[in-house]
């Protein structure tokens, strides 16, 4: 195992994982994965359902133990039963279903949960809960019962619960999949703000291409392996490959692709504004 540099949030070498089953030889969900994620990045992981991306998320937080290979998160070994608790001090995770991750009977109690688990004294808890709720703009809901909140608000509470433990990494495991478009935008804006202002490493697992556009890096998984890895420009340049494995690409990429295949010459665009600019350039030519 190589020495883990502090600027690396995640390192894996030949990582493999398969669920234990009684009869069949277990099939691997994660196959021979080599990965390095630098601290401070906003990384998106894309893949269709069953591509292994959610399994990877659970491995990153020590919720699952690697079957083979090495996985080091924030400098701690993720296959060791004791060091995983250290990992969980540094890595927070937001799950898909907003309803099934809120433990507390009130918002405040829920944000407190992670702090209680870590033995934080009650006076300090108060301070940290207020800070955390403020950072997700949910201060006014501190006494609310979770079931009265909307899906987007619940996810923000879940993020507050993580912010309260002052993590260095937040993993969003399809945290927007069950939200409506407005709430989805809200949660993504929040993730970007925490990344920008608090310097948190964000790993966003998703299948919405629009959510990945502003990442520093996109990792595309298919069948337990990384098939594409790079900047959004580099990844979406391979639109056909993404579509071939059941993934979508942003509208601008799709339209440009259709135009190019009909003989229009146009450089790669990712966002709508760029496409508008390129189209205007072409249309104003005389």
């Amino acid at each position, binding site marked *: 195992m190589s020495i883990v540099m502090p600027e690396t949030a995640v390192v894996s070498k030949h990582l493999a994982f398969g669920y234990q089953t009684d009869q069949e030889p277990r099939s691997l969900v994660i196959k021979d994965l080599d990965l390095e994620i630098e601290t401070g990045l906003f990384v998106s992981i894309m893949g269709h359902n069953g591509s292994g991306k959610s399994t990877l998320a*659970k491995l990153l*937080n020590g*919720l699952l133990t690697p079957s083979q290979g090495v996985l080091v998160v924030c400098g701690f070994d993720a296959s060791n039963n004791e060091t995983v*608790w250290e990992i*969980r*001090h540094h890595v*927070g*995770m937001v*799950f898909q*279903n907003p*309803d*099934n*991750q*809120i*433990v*507390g*009977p*009130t918002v*405040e*109690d829920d944000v*407190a*949960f*992670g*702090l*209680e*688990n*870590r*033995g*934080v*004294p*009650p006076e300090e*808890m*108060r301070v940290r*809960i207020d800070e955390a709720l403020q950072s997700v703009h949910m201060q006014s809901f501190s006494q609310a*019962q*979770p*079931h009265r909140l909307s899906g987007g608000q619940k996810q923000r509470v879940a993020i507050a*619960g*993580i912010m309260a*433990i002052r993590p260095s990494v937040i993993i969003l495991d399809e945290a927007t999949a069950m939200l409506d478009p407005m709430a989805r935008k809200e949660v993504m804006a929040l993730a970007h703000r925490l990344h920008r202002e608090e310097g948190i490493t964000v790993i966003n697992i998703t299948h919405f291409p629009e959510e990945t556009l502003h990442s520093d890096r996109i990792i595309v998984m298919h069948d337990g392996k990384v098939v594409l890895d790079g900047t959004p420009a580099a990844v979406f340049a391979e639109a056909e490959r993404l579509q071939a494995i059941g993934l979508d690409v942003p509208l601008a990429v799709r339209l440009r692709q259709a135009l190019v295949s009909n003989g229009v010459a146009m450089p790669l665009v990712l966002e709508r504004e760029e496409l508008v600019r390129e189209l205007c350039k072409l249309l104003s030519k005389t």
Partner: protein
Amino acid sequence: MNVLQNFAIGQYVPGRSFVHLLDPRSKLLFVLAFAILVFLANNWQTYTVLVVFTLSAVAVARISPGYLVRSLKPVWFLILLTIILHLLSTKGGAVYFSWGWLTIEEQGVKQAVFISLRLTLLVLISSLLTLTTSPLDLTDGMERLLSPLKKIKVPVHEISLMLSIALRFIPTLLEETDKIIKAQMARGADLDSGNLLKRAKNLVPITVPLFISAFRRAEELAWAMEARGYRGGSGRTRLRQLRFSWRDAVAALMILLILGLLGWWRA
């Protein structure tokens, strides 16, 4: 929106009265003490003390009498039965009424009144507890009071966490039940016709999905709790701190006062 939405858990009526603001531990202990004291009363004077006390507690709690009367609804039959049994079976003293072998005598009337009063007071005082204490505070108070039992390996922390998660998920599961009922009705399920056996069978399409969903939720919740660093009760701190205040001292004095008065006037 759903039909079960208005289902309230417990019967907590939020407020900021003296009784509301008492520490839940005090309230629990108080109800326990009161339940014992009720059995000390055995004459008009002592019962008057208890009645006066209960009524003033209700007044101080500013709970509308309607709520309290409603809390008696499940037990009124029991109270009525107590009255009838004592009227007819307890003998002694002057005979007030007789018809054939039926007689109603002085002691019978007295016992009927006393015993039914005892029952009523007990129900009222414990309703007052649940009316003025949120379920959350109640579980908290119970956990603290029972925490000495940890020494004999009673999983007090786990029980209390279970209760509080149950409180958290009751509304969610009610909503879910409503959704599943509607979904099966949309598939033509007929839930309220036929004999008992048929009706029970008709419930299968509701209960199976409900159980599956509850298990799925439990599994996901377990993941989330572990991810958030939950590893059992040891070393945990709590956000909610219970503190005794002057109010609790007043409550304790009240109990002593009642005890004193009962001891004095008891026959």
